[in-house]
């Protein structure tokens, strides 16, 4: 896990990114392993990890739903769409459904402003979304 890292403090964020890419989230065990390697406290590692929005601390679902709330999507009804997703999945952003099927995140901008509003499920961008199309889109992912 620590191959290619020298143990300097500058390695902390790249290490967290590697753990998240491999496992999908930052577990308590991962924090302990990193703090041991960098010879700092768990709190320091968690303090840095929780500062950045990229890092997650709960296990992700099989499919990851991202609702874009960038400016263009907001103007075209992203908030109403996000609430509809929350109702549909029964979770709030940052959580995973109890059957581990979906996790939900809100993101600042997916960069598809001309196609707003958009949601992203795994790597698929669903453009020009509407509340009434939501069920159909989510049903495609088991």
């Amino acid at each position, binding site marked *: 896990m620590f191959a290619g890292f020298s143990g300097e403090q*500058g390695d902390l964020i790249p290490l967290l990114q590697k753990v998240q890419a491999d496992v999908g989230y930052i577990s308590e065990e991962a924090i302990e392993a990193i703090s041991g390697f960098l010879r700092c406290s768990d709190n320091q590692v968690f303090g840095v990890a929780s500062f950045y929005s990229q890092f997650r601390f709960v296990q992700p679902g099989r499919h990851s739903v991202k609702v874009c709330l960038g400016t263009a999507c907001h103007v075209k009804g992203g908030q109403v769409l996000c609430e*509809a997703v929350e109702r549909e999945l029964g979770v709030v952003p940052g959580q995973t459904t109890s059957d581990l099927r979906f996790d939900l995140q809100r993101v600042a901008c997916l960069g598809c402003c001309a196609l707003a509003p958009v949601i992203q499920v795994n790597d698929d961008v669903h453009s020009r979304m509407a509340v009434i199309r939501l069920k159909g889109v989510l049903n495609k992912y088991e």
Partner: protein
Amino acid sequence: MSEFEQMRRRAIEKWRLLQASKLPVIFIGMASCGKAAGAGEVLQVLKARLKDARVKARIVEVGCIGPCYLEPLLDVKLPGQPRVSYSNVNPDKVKRIVESHIVKREPQKLIAAGHFGNGDGSIPAGIPRFFDLPMLKPQVRVVLRNCGFIDPGDIDHYLANEGYLGAVKALAMTPADVISEVREAGLRGRGGAGFPTFKKWEVCRNAPGKVKYMICNADEGDPGAFMNRSLLEGDPHAVLEGLLIAAYAIGASHGYIYIRAEYPLAIARLKQALVQMRHYGFLGNNIQGSGFNFDITIKEGAGAFVCGEETALIASIEGKRGMPKSRPPFPAVSGLHGKPTIINNVETLGTLPNILRNGASWYRQLGCEGNPGTKTFSLVGKVRRTGLIEVPLGMTLRQIIFDIGGGTRKPFKAVQTGGPSGGCLSDEFLDTPINYESLTAAGSIMGSGGLIIMDEDTCVVDIARYFLDFTQKESCGKCSPCRVGSRHMVEILERITKGEGQPEDLIRLQVLGETVKRGSLCGLGQTAPNPVLTTLRYFRQEYLSHVKDKHCPATVCRELLEYRVVPGKCTGCQRCVSVCPTGAITGPRAEPHNLDPSKCIKCRACYEICRYDAIAGDAIIIRSKGQPQYEQQA
């Protein structure tokens, strides 16, 4: 002949062979935006169709040429004909393009967007020149000159188009001469503040110490802005060449590119470009025989808006929480690991090769007095032609929004410049020339170049709340004016949008906003109140409607709205009954339905199904409750 000249000649020959290719050459825009619009599928279908038609062709994946509303774009270049561009390409159009244009050599003028010919006789009739299209004609492409033309994954394409000429020229000059050339050009930082680039450099150059760092800031965090992403995806070598020139000028031996992790394609392009740079001797020891040593590391950001600020960015590279420090000392004196450090924005760096190659006096011809050069903007929101543009500074907002952007479908209301840190300007500013000073005077900022256009369906109070909510969440929490002040401002704005605002709230907002602006440590807090202060200044009437009449003129603020069924229009089709999640709509089939406002959660499901379903009509309307003469209209 120098080694560089040999590489350049080889590259030019390779480029000429591509232009004069006996095979059809197909260019396809494969930047992130093109892919989101479906370019990946188009590419697959294209390959299959070519195979069916038994045609051999060369496919070149290029970056984004700018007009996002035309994506996906696919260009065809046949021997003896100019390159012809097709827009909004889908699998059906691919079939037609392959069968008619590529096989029968007949450009399809009905679906073509434009051609790239240079008046050389063989121009297909009925197709305009691509750069004569209304969106492109007023533009001047300096930084974006290669985007959409060259293969960003091939350093030879860049070399053949005058690439690295600027760097080689700079390496033959003294660092002091490079700095004075940039001073002559009058280049100002394109990241937002507009600080003269050479001044920063001079301070760093003269700072004592052997180890210095050069950082490229590619942490483009503004929602609705994608200029830097497009440039890095479409022409990564331009930015890297700029980084090399800047490092030589300040005497840095190591460089970093701090880039958002949300830009995977741009990161991949940069990594590929760095390998090629090293292979061609533009990285490492003794670059092009000049004795100058330089290396570059890519650092991925982890998602924090505040890391666009210089000292926060440095903290993040050092592996700490990205919190700004008070300045001085400025990073140019004491930055990364306590060493003199320069941080320049992607676009600033992308401009440098052009200045060095063509000279300062050439650059000064562009733009206006005190603001030379061009600036890229991402034009988004309620404008007809969205996309990435580059214009000379000094152009008016009217030219940008109406000539280039094609105006809005509904009446124009406002333009937000500079992203969440900028301001919301009304139509009285449409004829103001855009430059750093004029935008600051209007209470906004240039910012990195996001332009969000709003029409009468956008509620400015809601927009102000949205931006402040964003900056409040991104506040790092170090200083209390920003942490506490922005929080209170969001709470007041939420009250107003819910119709619970008091007239005194407007005064409170004004005072709080000015305090946060004056008292905050870094640029995030100092600019966060701009959207509120500018909307209070230019759209006061709209705030007053929310506060006094509990009325949202744009019918956006949900608590002030009401959903209603128009009995005369309702066909009783029960579509809305079936989608309503709370059972608020009832009524037997074929009779006008009833909507119970106490159960309605305003989720829009019934409204959408009523508008988009052929059987239903426009029977469900959304109205602002406080609208004057509301009862008569309903």
